[in-house]
């Protein structure tokens, strides 16, 4: 049985268009062990922000990228990437348009 990952104090950087969903905050301080746990925490504390990042099935929206520090989470272990204290999770929109 694998040990339960310990929550770490992390910072979530919120993109400008979504700051209205969390009272204007540009950054949120959270305790989370992984990006998945971070999203669970957002769902509890800021449901409108969570809904803008994830659809109703819980999947991260197609044009949203989640970075752990400077690395895209997919280059590590995706939503199960283990976080360290002081990590910064940045939520960014993908480059697209037309």
């Amino acid at each position, binding site marked *: 049985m694998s040990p339960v990952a310990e929550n770490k104090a992390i910072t979530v950087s919120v993109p400008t*268009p*979504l700051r209205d969903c969390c009272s204007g905050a540009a950054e949120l301080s959270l305790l989370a062990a992984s990006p998945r746990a971070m999203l669970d925490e957002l769902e509890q504390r800021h449901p409108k922000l969570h*809904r*803008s*990042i994830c*659809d*109703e*099935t*819980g*999947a991260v*929206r*197609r*044009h*949203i990228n989640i970075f752990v520090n400077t690395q895209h989470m997919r280059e590590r272990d995706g939503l199960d990437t283990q976080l360290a204290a002081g990590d910064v999770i940045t939520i960014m*929109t*993908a480059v*697209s348009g037309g």
Partner: protein
Amino acid sequence: MSDKIILCIGTKKGLFVAESSRNRRGFTLRGPFGQGVGVYSALIDTRGTPRLYASSCNPFFGMKVLRSTDLGRTFKETKAAPAFPKEDGRALANIWALEAGKDKKELLCGVEPASLFRSRDGGDSWEIIPGISNHEHARKWQPGNGGLCMHTILRDGNRVHLGISTGGHYLSEDGGETFTAANKGVGAGFTPDPFPEFGQCVHKIAGHKDAPGRLYMQNHGGWAEWDGPGGRRPDIGVLRSDDHGKTWHSIAKGLPSDFGFPIVVHPDNPDILYVMPLEPATRTCPGGVPAVWRSENGGGSWQKLMRGLPKKASFYTVLRDAMDIDELKSPALYFGTTTGQLWIGRDGGEKWECLFDALPPIHCVKAAVV
């Protein structure tokens, strides 16, 4: 007395609102609202103090519903947009229809993937309507080019008519609790069976409050040349029903093409209707010459209305919700094009004039007197 015409113009880059006095001599334009985000549906709710609603299809952050209580000077997001229950497994992809419901603050919303939602508080919270959203056919419907969309919601007392592309026409006679497929006479050109029980690519359905049994449908036509299994299917594109949509028959004879998207009924006369025929292959105006076609006898015959419209080189498309008519004594038609032009057809479409010629591609146009 009402003294303004309001137009909601949903585009690829947001919602615009145009306003004019009753004489319609000049329209002022506001917007875009929901900047940079596609708007596929709008509603001008004239019950009580007018409210404007629009969907905002954000490719990054998902669906929002915008609401204005000041005739489109400002818009705010409602507290929530429709959403499927988490265990359903479907995710909202777009909002295709916003309509007034039975009670004053009730709204109905048709979405992609094809499902129906209801709000009882003016758009701040939503519940799924299972009678159609979880219908036994629902997982068998297929998306058309625009997606698997529920684009038409028509209420007539306890009857509710829905148009789904590609699902067909569904009818409820118990206020929206249960629905049955009602597509007898509605053809499909893309299945071996020319007249399946359901699965037709209905483009739009229109009705009239004074003739509740009468419905008109712009279906996916353009199959006259098909010579495979099931045989030719000419004239399946423009249809009429006189029994609340239970059976349908063609009224396409006399049109240059039975393919098109919008269909609109005159506010004072259920025998007068309008379509915009398009070439099936390109979905643009036949020969590059746009024209609205009007019938004054319920589809028995058709007249071409093109005075003021370009005479050549106009290869645009008018989408399913991009044509509407106002309710003044001599009503004006309005249509928006995928090339960003908004046209007004004064005197019921007799004389056309371009109101705005360089908007983003237009998805929907709604007109109301407020």
